[in-house]
């Protein structure tokens, strides 16, 4: 793949950015929007932590607290944990399969603008009188109550995000299945691509369920339909079932791509093919399929019959098997590999560590006996902040560092990258580990206040301190990434020496990615590091 000198893809005028159909520019636009909302959600988390620092209400009213929780939940789930994959998927998927763009470039631009429109609507809810206070779940009958905020905003935001996700998912699935360059077979696809394929299939089958649920909410609120009104034959549990039929699989929409990133980085920095690669692919699809069979475990206290609770408890625990396979395979990949502890590698190892803690606390949560005891407590909050909050964010930040030279053409500062990670790990573990303890002791979630039990007060104080340390670490990491776009030294085309296709073209990629569609040779493989060495010797 000869290096031809190009103007990089990102040196374009405003018009080229606004009307672009280039997957790389759209990926960048997704990433920036996603990051802005990540920061807003993070600030609302700090506000929540400040309020919980001491018992009693110091800084906010209860309504403001409810709004802060809703903003934090909705933005972190949809704008960060889901939408950030719009960034990685768009940017990297065509590069990894040797395509010039996605299957439907205009539809891809539309996906972004739908997401953008939803973002503007979300910002409008900050206007006085429009605050949404129904939590990200929006359960009726509470959400149909005047005090919960405008349902129209909540439902239409979800509709637009859903349309955006659906268009993007269909686009990337068709791209992945039909536009792979010759020589990239399903067997030779990066694990990143397998993860994104599974994730997008989940989106196609899951998003409509949530769209249906919020449509019913909208109809009940403004057209007085009977969906959730028991006096006319409706059932509020219908909402919970439909909601979790999407919103449980969506945690795999969030975490499967993170697994894909972890697999790429672990392989590159161990210079070894992923251990048990076939079992990894089966594990991805196992998680994707089982993910649709566990949603009742969010509803163990909603009065479902015992036999259903037991059934869904089994399927929930079963998900631990493919997940465990993945963790073991990552660890075995390190064994006898030549491991390099670069910043992205440290992020990856931290992500696995945090996922392990979050995953192991998730298994007992799948058992009704334990779940009912800690239901709606801070224990649950700590559990999903370990898996989705931390494991996902650490993998994303690892990905930011890993593909930084590819995307920007420059290198970030290794030193500041590592400092940022260490601060993040100290802060997050101080924060979330103590949240487990206070949760086990009975602290309920979503409450603005708690009784002045001396131990609880101490635990909450330390958590808040941890949260601010975490925020400081995120600030350092992002400052390093942002400043390095100007101050960082020029990066090589392939600084990590990976044979994966995106690294075989210049950094940053030229506007059309590939001059000629590459024909990948028989002995090439995205994890065949000897092949890359042989190429170097030939050159």
């Amino acid at each position, binding site marked *: 793949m000869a290096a031809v000198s*190009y*103007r990089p893809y990102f040196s374009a005028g405003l018009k*080229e950015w606004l*009307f672009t*159909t*280039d997957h790389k520019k759209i990926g960048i636009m997704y990433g920036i929007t996603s990051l802005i909302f990540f920061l807003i959600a993070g600030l609302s988390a700090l506000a929540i932590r400040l309020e919980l620092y001491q018992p009693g209400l110091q800084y906010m009213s209860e309504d403001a607290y409810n709004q802060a929780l809703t903003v934090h939940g909705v933005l972190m789930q949809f704008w960060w944990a889901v939408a950030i994959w719009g960034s990685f998927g768009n940017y990297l998927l065509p590069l990894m399969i040797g*395509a*010039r763009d996605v*299957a*439907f*470039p*205009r539809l891809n*631009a*539309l996906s*972004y603008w*739908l997401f*953008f*429109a939803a973002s*503007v*609507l979300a910002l409008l809810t900050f206007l006085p009188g*429009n605050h949404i206070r129904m939590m990200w779940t929006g359960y009726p009958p509470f959400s149909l109550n005047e005090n919960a905020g*405008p349902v*129209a*905003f909540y439902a239409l935001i979800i*509709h*637009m995000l859903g*349309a955006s996700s*659906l268009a993007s998912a*269909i*686009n990337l*699935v*068709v791209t992945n299945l039909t*536009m792979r360059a*010759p020589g990239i077979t399903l067997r030779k696809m990066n694990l990143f691509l397998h993860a994104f394929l599974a994730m997008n299939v989940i989106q*196609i*089958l899951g*998003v*409509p*369920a949530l*769209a*249906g*649920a919020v*449509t*019913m909410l909208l*109809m009940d609120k403004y*057209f*007085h*339909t*009977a*969906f959730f009104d028991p006096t*006319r*034959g*409706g*059932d509020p549990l219908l909402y919970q079932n*439909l909601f979790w039929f999407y919103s449980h699989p969506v945690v795999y929409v969030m975490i499967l791509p993170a697994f894909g990133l972890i697999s790429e980085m672990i392989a590159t920095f161990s210079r070894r093919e992923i251990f048990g690669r076939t079992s990894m692919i089966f594990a991805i699809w196992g998680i994707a399929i089982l993910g649709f069979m566990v949603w009742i475990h969010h509803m163990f206290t909603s009065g479902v019959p015992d036999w259903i609770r037991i059934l869904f408890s089994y399927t929930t625990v079963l998900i631990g098997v493919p997940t465990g396979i993945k963790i073991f395979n990552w660890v075995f990949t390190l064994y006898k590999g030549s491991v390099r502890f670069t910043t992205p590698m440290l992020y990856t190892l931290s992500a696995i560590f945090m996922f392990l803690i979050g995953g192991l606390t998730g298994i007992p949560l799948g058992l009704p006996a334990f779940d009912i005891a800690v239901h709606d407590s801070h224990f649950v909050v700590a559990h999903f902040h370990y898996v989705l909050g931390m494991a996902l964010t650490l993998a994303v930040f690892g990905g930011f560092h890993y593909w930084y030279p590819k995307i920007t053409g420059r290198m970030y500062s290794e030193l500041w990258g590592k400092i940022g990670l260490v601060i993040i790990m100290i802060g997050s573990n101080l924060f979330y580990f103590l949240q487990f303890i206070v949760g086990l002791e009975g602290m309920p979630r979503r409450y603005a206040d708690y009784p002045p039990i001396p131990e609880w007060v101490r635990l909450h104080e330390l958590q808040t301190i941890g949260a601010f340390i975490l925020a400081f670490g995120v600030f350092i990491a992002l400052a390093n990434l942002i400043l390095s776009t100007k101050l960082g030294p020029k990066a090589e085309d392939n600084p990590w020496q990976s044979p994966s296709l995106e690294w075989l073209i210049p950094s940053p990629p030229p*506007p*059309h990615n590939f*001059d*000629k*569609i590459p024909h990948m040779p028989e002995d090439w493989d995205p994890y065949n590091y000897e092949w890359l060495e042989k190429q170097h010797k030939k050159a």
Partner: protein
Amino acid sequence: MAHEGTHAAHHETSVWALPVGLSTFFLSLAAIAHFTWHLPFLAVLSGGVGLALLAIGIAGWANEYFSKGHDEGLGFQGIVWFVFAEVVIFGTIFAGFWMARVTHADVWVREWIPQGGMNLALVALLTLILWTSSFTIWKAEHSIEEGDLGGYRMWLLATMVLGTAFLVLHAWEWLHLWHKGFTISSNMYGTGFYMLTGVHASHVLVGVLMQLVLLINSGKALNKKTPARAASYYWHFVDLAWLLVAGTAYIVGSYGKF
């Protein structure tokens, strides 16, 4: 693969995704202005801007698609995946309908079914119309594959006429039932009935609009046959879905009191 050969490096752009995206913002804003802000003027203004942007965007998009580049044939697969999503959307309303039908079977039969039951003769007529249109769109698709542009236009138009006839008859049926006191807010039968048939009718409407776009651009259809195949596939799905929708909304819904 699809993109063989070399291109001159330039930035790929299209003006049309942005107006379509923004139109959804204005349409949502119109709904919010109407429902929660109670500002009718803003609602009408925003809705008008939204519809205009949507129409301009889709017209420009279709024109650009039919005039530039060559047919890569990927759109068909896109629609196939989209139909999977549609099945789940319909599934959510079916879930609500069936749950209420089973748990409230008693009061459902005693009180909820409108006087005189449902007009099953009309349902048979609607079914006949819709399924004939499945045949006509298949003929349209067949004509364009053969390169017969005149036949393509004629069969497409026939499908649109049938689709529109279905919508008009259906609307007449709704008005009739509504006046009998069977409304969307009466009970779960009313809710389930109007939501199932309403969501289905909205799909028929989208299908007819798809055919309208195809008809407007039929002059350039010989180079780009995939949209006709995709629209046809979508239409078959809408027609098949009708079997389940009508079976549930009319027959299962009013069983026990014809």
